[in-house]
């Protein structure tokens, strides 16, 4: 589904090397954990997928499409195939959980009828069936992250990217979020989870790719977090 071919990305005109000659292949329906210390290049790798950054050299293909061929103005087409969840949850504070999800669907141009029908289903999926009317400040950290995941799923993406989604959560909540991601993965959505929470990654026994100083040092099929 996603192919990285010899990707190099630097910042500050070459002084900081974020990714060095990275090649990686991710198949449809895979659950991949991307691990490594802060600054290892995880976020940069994800930003390359969402076209927030462009590589200095190398090619990235998503479903066979070369990302370098996509003009910045057309990048939203790609983003609609991808759902993104961040550590800093980024919910609209003045909208309820349901409205936050609906907002994403509105933006994608879905008709009102579809939004009204789908929002409760998605909230149900993330376990917030009864919390749709709550505002973000009335929700717990775990609940907020669930809303963010619900929002990321609103436009039915083929790929879900989660960048440190459990970073601000306690263990119990973090585990629940992880289980939710696994459940989403079971429905066929490819999931890329960037994290440095070793305990979580080790528990699920899925593919783990380890980044160190911009290079892939381990790529294990049913891996553990090794560093």
């Amino acid at each position: 589904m996603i192919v990285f071919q010899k990707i190099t990305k630097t910042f500050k005109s070459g002084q900081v090397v974020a990714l060095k000659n990275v090649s990686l292949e991710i198949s449809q329906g895979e659950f991949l954990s991307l691990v490594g210390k802060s600054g290892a290049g995880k976020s940069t790798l994800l930003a390359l997928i969402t076209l927030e950054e462009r590589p200095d050299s190398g090619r990235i293909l998503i479903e066979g499409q070369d990302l370098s061929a996509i003009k910045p103005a057309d990048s939203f087409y790609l983003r609609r195939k991808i759902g993104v969840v961040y550590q800093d949850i980024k919910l609209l504070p003045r909208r309820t959980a349901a409205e936050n999800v609906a907002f994403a669907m509105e933006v994608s141009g879905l008709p009102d009828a579809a939004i009204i029908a789908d929002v409760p289903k998605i909230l149900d999926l993330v376990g917030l069936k009864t919390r749709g009317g709550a505002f973000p400040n009335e929700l717990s950290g775990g609940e907020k992250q669930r809303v963010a995941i619900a929002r990321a799923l609103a436009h039915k993406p083929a790929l879900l990217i989660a960048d440190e989604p459990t970073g601000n959560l306690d263990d119990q909540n973090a585990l629940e979020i992880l289980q939710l991601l696994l459940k989403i993965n079971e429905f066929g959505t490819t999931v890329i989870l960037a994290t440095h929470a070793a305990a979580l990654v080790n528990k699920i026994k899925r593919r783990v790719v380890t980044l160190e100083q911009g290079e892939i040092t381990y790529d294990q099929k049913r891996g553990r977090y090794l560093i």
Partner: protein
Amino acid sequence: MPTLISLSRVINYGLVNLWRHRLLSLTAVVVMGISMSVLGLLLVVNQLADLSSSTIKDRVDVSIFFTPEATDDQVTEVKAEFEKFEEVKSINFISAEAALEKFKQRHGNDPLIQATLLELEANPLDSTLVVTAHDLGQYPLLIQKIERSRFHPLIKEINYEDNRALIERLDTITQGIRNFGVLLAVIFGCTTVLVTFNTLKLTIFSRREEIEIMRLVGASNWYIRGPYLVEGTAYGIFGGVISSSLIYPFLAFVEHGASNFFGFRLPQASFFHEGFWLLIIIQIGVGIGLGVISSVIATRRHLQI
């Protein structure tokens, strides 16, 4: 359908923006209204200057007086001949009798003149051709042509009041008014763009979270931009409506005075009558234009698209 849905949502967001920042919006609308009023006034003043100068130009003509011996038929022949000159716009034939009739009418309540006219046996007035040219500058040439024509013996006198100096001075003043007007319009236009731009900038900043999320979930650029274009357009429309509703009573108020001052009835097509619609359209149109320009600049600079 998705496009239509998006369009209605974009318009909706724009209007919601406008309402959420009503005080800011009000500032932009007021400034827009003032600018459009200034523009409207300049257009009106410009039109009045044009009208007065063209009225004076229209009043310029050449009167050709014929000798008493010239018969009406001969004068008609001369008229037909002169009409062939390319400079000639119109020729009016006033026969000696008609001239006398007119003279009598004009001085009907002056017993002295009436008595004098009775004393006279023959008509003291001559047949006259009143000639106008297409352009002011053509008169000297036209007069030359008339003087050199084979009918010259029939002509007693050619009367041409040379108003050119006066008209040229008037033109200079009109041009001055116009230049000053353009300068003023540009200054006010720029101010409007700046104020509108800043208003939109603040709206954009206050909604940056929303914009970030829009981008996150795959909103197209125009979907993110659209609401601000709607906002800018709305400022233009409201500003134009305000200025139109200010100028309307003003024009009604000065109309009588203006037509008295210039000594002619303001034409139907002028801004004072049917042309007012044009004035409204111009004001709202320019308002929308400035609003859209401002929002394009604001979104370019602050949305990083």
